[in-house]
């Protein structure tokens, strides 16, 4: 269970590892994956599609002008492509991360990965106060998972 998650996080092009679900009509999934990586990595790392359910991504992609306290709006063509990619590769679709949905109600719209029960569980132990302080924000995954690719977590 844990290994696929770690692999997904470890990959340099995190998104590239998500299963490329069959293309929705009119969407070139490979191009959409690249666009997602480029546009969604400007302010934080591009979060992997399998870490949230499709309904969460859909909501995020339709509220970009008020994105966690910022305007992250896109032109409509890019927005639609990214939404198609994220919703096709989400935890409950092509991303196949059923375990990440444990404890999430079917009508619950959790918009933060860091508020998903799986994430809270994984981070409730083992993470030192110092590591949180250094990261500055829970969303700053790379502050702690930078070395995941080399098989270790830098959590002192």
């Amino acid at each position: 269970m844990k290994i696929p998650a770690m692999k997904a996080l470890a990959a340099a092009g995190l998104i590239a590892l998500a299963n490329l679900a069959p293309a929705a009509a009119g969407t070139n999934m490979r191009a959409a994956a690249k666009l997602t990586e480029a546009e969604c990595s400007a302010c934080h790392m591009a979060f992997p599609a399998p870490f949230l359910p499709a309904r969460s991504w859909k909501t995020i992609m339709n509220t970009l002008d008020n994105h966690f306290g910022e305007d992250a709006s896109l032109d409509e063509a890019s927005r639609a492509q990214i939404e198609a990619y994220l919703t096709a590769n989400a935890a409950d679709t092509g991303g196949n991360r059923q375990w990440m949905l444990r404890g999430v109600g079917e009508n619950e719209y959790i918009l933060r990965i860091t508020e998903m029960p799986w994430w809270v569980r994984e981070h409730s132990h083992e993470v030192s106060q110092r590591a949180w302080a250094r990261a500055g924000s829970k969303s700053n995954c790379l502050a702690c998972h930078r070395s995941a690719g080399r098989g270790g977590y830098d959590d002192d």
Partner: protein
Amino acid sequence: MKGNFRKLALVGALAALAGWPAAAGDTSARQLIAQFAAQAHTQPSVARGKALFMGRHTGGKPETPSCTTCHTQNLRATGHTRAGKAIEPMALSANPSRFTDSAKVAKWFRRNCKSVLGRECTAGEKADILAWLSSL
């Protein structure tokens, strides 16, 4: 006025056909300042640009009261987003690759002015800000 508008629309249509704005390297700070200033019929002002960029504003989102929230007061140094990611320096002298992609400049002016001011920046304000960032 109307004639100008028509001309602009035509340029726009041609640009769309040609797939422009192209990728990085299709413009420069100098070209953009000239374009924005012409559009606004104003002279770019380094002082006005500085005041706007360094000032605190209340019209936008509470999380981002100033351009310096992310770009910091030292524009020759690295800034950081609210999620902790580094932002390369904004001063042209410290980062010559700045303001060379017209689509990128347009996208971030739109987003960041809305976040900080609660509205888009005017062409005159964009000329002022780019003039200031080019003068550092």
